[in-house]
């Protein structure tokens, strides 16, 4: 089986530690198209993610006739606004691709952000987020992403703000069991019960689980399979549920556990077949753009993840 990424030479990447956010003051924009050659995906590369909108859920049937729920995510003019490169005190580097989505009327955008978008050559946007990447995965500023970026059959992590539930009690918020429904319990069936010991320690521990605001916070759903990609409408169909309300902005990136981690580990062990999920050969690198989408079929679907027909009884 041809694996283009295994043919390339192993380049010594600069020491790139665990990727986390640092001060913007140190950030220096990446040089535009310094390398002439088109970069290829390697098992050590981490690609950028995209920002999409959760449009809703529907259902699909696979080739065996098994029904599975899908969430429909749509890209809304998702473009690159910056390439971030920060050198930390210990000389390790942080690289990231800053992505923005959903055009916004200029009159509703601050002057500072208008200048930022102007510099990138993109129309003003509603949401701007960055995705940590390896240094070879930078994308030219102004590139418009397409749904083709994700390959049907791969796994993604989807990050969004969860639905707000307001002020909630301990049973819903922390899965407390409450008290009995009868047998003398008076007026406290859903109460939390005791919140501490006695004179020792004589106080309530900090962080004691109590009632409070639930939801409306950043939540990641991991390892969702991409089942269908539609580049005409820029739709990504993922199997399962995704946090957030309909039309909420979501961040989609390659699954850390089932894609990035497995690729690196299996490449180090030499298991060439297990580097990518079953059926996958390569990933669009550094990103799936509108230009790439023109050369590929408009709709691509993943085969069933099952091995055998579940409706035919086994011998």
């Amino acid at each position: 089986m041809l694996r283009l990424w295994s043919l390339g030479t192993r380049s010594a990447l600069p020491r790139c530690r665990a990727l986390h956010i640092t001060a913007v003051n140190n950030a220096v924009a990446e040089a535009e198209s310094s390398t002439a050659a088109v970069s290829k995906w390697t098992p050590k590369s981490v690609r950028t993610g995209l920002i999409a909108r959760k449009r809703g859920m529907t259902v699909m049937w696979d080739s065996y006739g098994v029904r599975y729920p899908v969430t429909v995510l749509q890209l809304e003019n998702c473009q690159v606004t910056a390439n971030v490169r920060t050198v930390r005190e210990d000389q390790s580097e942080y690289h990231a691709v800053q992505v923005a989505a959903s055009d916004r009327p200029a009159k509703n955008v601050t002057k500072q952000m208008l200048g930022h978008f102007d510099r990138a050559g993109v129309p003003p946007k509603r949401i701007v987020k960055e995705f940590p990447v390896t240094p070879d995965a930078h994308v030219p500023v102004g590139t418009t992403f397409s749904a083709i970026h994700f390959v049907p059959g791969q796994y993604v992590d989807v990050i969004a703000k969860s639905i707000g539930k307001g002020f909630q009690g301990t049973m819903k918020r922390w899965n407390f069991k409450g008290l009995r429904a009868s047998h003398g319990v008076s007026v406290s069936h859903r109460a939390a019960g005791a919140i501490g010991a006695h004179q020792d320690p004589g106080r309530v521990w900090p962080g004691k689980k109590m009632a409070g605001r639930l939801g409306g916070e950043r939540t990641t759903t991991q390892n969702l399979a991409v089942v269908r990609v539609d580049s005409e409408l820029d739709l990504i169909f993922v199997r399962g549920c995704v946090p957030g309300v309909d039309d909420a902005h979501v961040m989609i990136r390659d699954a850390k556990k089932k894609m990035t981690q497995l690729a690196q580990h299996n490449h180090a062990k030499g298991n060439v077949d297990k580097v990518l999920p079953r059926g996958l050969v390569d990933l669009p690198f550094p990103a799936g753009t509108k230009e790439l989408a023109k050369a590929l079929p408009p709709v691509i679907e993943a085969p069933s993840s099952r091995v055998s027909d579940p409706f035919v009884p086994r011998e």
Partner: protein
Amino acid sequence: MLNALRRCAQRLMSTAAQPYPYSNAAIIPPPPAVPAPAPTKAGKGLMAHLPQRLLTPEKLQLLARFGKRHPERILPGSVLQVTTKYAPTSFTGVLLAIRRRGADTSFLLRNVINRTGVEVQFFVCSPHVREIKVLMRAGGRGSEGRAGPRMRRAKLFYLRDAPDKMTAISAGMRK
């Protein structure tokens, strides 16, 4: 040496023939018959348009019959016979409820088999459902099946506790 040459030839042939180079197991479905209307690109009316993009024309026609505004819509209280690909290959029953969710639309059929009430939920767009035949229509317009009384409810769950009404329906079928 010979192996390397063979692999080289395979590689050239595979990249030329493969329309989608990132996965060798991907399915490329035929392009949709109707192009997507422009507002769906911005998300307006996208979810309502999706069944047209995901389903075959036969399934869309079947789905329309379970809608609310089709002239020959199937009403609850009708007696339907569903033919499926796997067991049970055929099931007949009274339509108790239609759950309308676009592509996920389903309906509930109830029958009494060997003095046991049996209810089966069928999904209209499932590839297992081959054919839906109306044996008795409950008051709607159309020519399929015999005419039956119109039900005054959308959900006929009260039939679970009324065996005499179930027998009356089956008697009406046999007459």
